[in-house]
């Protein structure tokens, strides 16, 4: 009971951060929206011919949504690292508050704010011609998979946020995720890549997730990759959760240079 109450206290704190820094949300959604416009209007003319029956804007929405998540969780990592450096994590760690409450509160508020950012991005996409073929069930599945992805990557972000030696370094891990998104069928079909890159693309976690999201949005069905996609997000979630709690139990601020 106490753990639930404490998790809620922590969630409230974290949500206040989000609602009081609307500029941060704008910064978070600006990059993916810019990417969306760039890909649709600049590269779309050339790449769009290779996406077959799927309109290019419809083709790239899953990738853009995942970019939004990556941009959002990088911010969560930075915020957690700031807490660590300021001694706020030390304060919580020396109090009778469960580690899962401190980090769980962040994860919960990160999920809510990321869903909000994704909704903003999808609305912009609708304005420029995104026309999903998904029925409510498909949308529900899409959102479910998205929430799992947000949770898994948020816990990963918190692990790196607690591990980083500086606030600047805390968000750097997100570049790796960013790279994974580009080396996947998110923006271009993988058959146009070199064989080596294609092998990477076909065997990395983002690929089945993007494929399943795209299938849900354009065909209204989860498609053949859903189980692999779920296995990846569940796996990343369990590993990141364990790692983040493990590093939380040991984290102390880096002493200032003397």
């Amino acid at each position, binding site marked *: 009971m*106490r753990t639930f*109450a*404490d998790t809620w*206290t922590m969630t*409230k*704190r974290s949500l*206040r*951060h989000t609602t*009081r*820094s609307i500029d941060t949300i704008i910064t978070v959604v600006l990059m993916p929206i810019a990417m969306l416009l760039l890909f649709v209007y600049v590269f779309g003319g050339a790449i769009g011919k290779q996406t077959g029956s799927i309109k290019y804007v419809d083709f790239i929405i899953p990738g853009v949504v995942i970019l939004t998540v990556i941009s959002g969780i990088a911010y969560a990592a930075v915020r957690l690292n700031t807490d660590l*450096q*300021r*001694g*706020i994590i*030390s*304060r*919580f*760690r*020396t*109090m*009778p*508050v469960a580690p899962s409450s401190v980090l769980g509160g962040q994860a919960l508020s990160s999920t809510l704010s990321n869903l909000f950012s994704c909704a903003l991005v999808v609305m912009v996409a609708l304005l420029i011609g995104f026309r999903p073929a998904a029925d409510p069930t498909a949308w529900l599945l899409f959102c479910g998979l998205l929430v799992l992805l947000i949770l898994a990557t948020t816990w990963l972000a918190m692990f790196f946020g607690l591990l980083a030696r500086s606030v600047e370094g805390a968000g750097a891990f997100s570049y790796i995720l960013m790279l994974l998104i580009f080396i996947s069928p998110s923006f271009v079909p993988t058959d146009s890549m070199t064989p080596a890159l294609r092998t990477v693309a076909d065997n990395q976690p983002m690929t089945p997730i993007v494929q399943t999201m795209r299938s849900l949005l354009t065909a209204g069905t989860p498609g053949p990759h859903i189980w692999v996609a779920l296995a990846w997000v569940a796996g990343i979630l369990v590993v990141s959760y364990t790692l983040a709690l493990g590093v939380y139990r*040991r984290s*102390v*601020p880096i*002493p200032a240079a*003397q």
Partner: protein
Amino acid sequence: MDDRTTNAIEVRNLEKGYKGVPVLHDVSFTVGRGTVFALLGANGSGKTTTINILTTLIKADGGTASVAGFDVAEQPAKVREQISLTGQSAAVDQMLTARENLAMMGELRHVTDPGRTVTDLLAKFDLSDAADRRLLTFSGGMRRRLDIAMSLVGDAPIIFFDEPTTGLDPKSRTDMWLTIRQLVENGTTVFLTTQYLEEADHLADEIAILHSGRIVASGTAEELKAMVPAGLVELEFDEEEQLSAARRALGDRHEVSRVDSKLVVATRRSVAEMADMFIRLKDSGIEPTGFSRQLPTLDDVFFKILDDHEKGRHADVR
């Protein structure tokens, strides 16, 4: 906390290294309930490491430490229910208001009347007027006051302060000292680290001096001061001849040094020693134009101990 006979903090032979470099070596001390204990040392002497071990943030490599009767390594959850930590930097949430910061602590500490606790603490720390402003507009002193107020939510019986007055202006420092005194009057045990001898002298019942990860001296401020000459007597002379004569007369029995036109004689706390000094002067027919006595400060103790320590002598007044 049922057992009133146990000490608030007991540390035995604590060892801690960091990447093969020893940070703490054979550190032992005891803090009685309701007392103020000061761990005195320079930057890098191991003060924060000691606090981190006692507050369950990091684990020691060897030795034992118990807080409120609970072993910090074996029962960290029990320890956390008895302590509160005020770290070196103000651990306050900048995005929240002062009231929200305190209310959050009230919720996490599960106090019975959070509203009242928050209002009382805001008033006590002179933050009532700024209560609903976000901390972005707060001065350093205000943040520190809020930081301490947050540590007091829930009335933890043992409070740790890591360099509580470093970087504070003189007024804020005096306020901080007053707060610590009030805490102790209400039965709280206070463990603090400091670089300032004056602070330890002013606040602490017991002081331990930490140097390069070792306790090089410990005792009350008075006991520590007794380790150095109880007073330096300054003798003034008009004439150079008189000064030289005095120096010859005292030199074989006393520690004498010359500072400008004055002769400084180190004496211990003994009337006999003082009397001997004056008798020697009288017998030699030397009349100083003036004399004055200086009391030792903890600074003198500190530098003497460091000096002794470099020479390999351990100072233990117990």
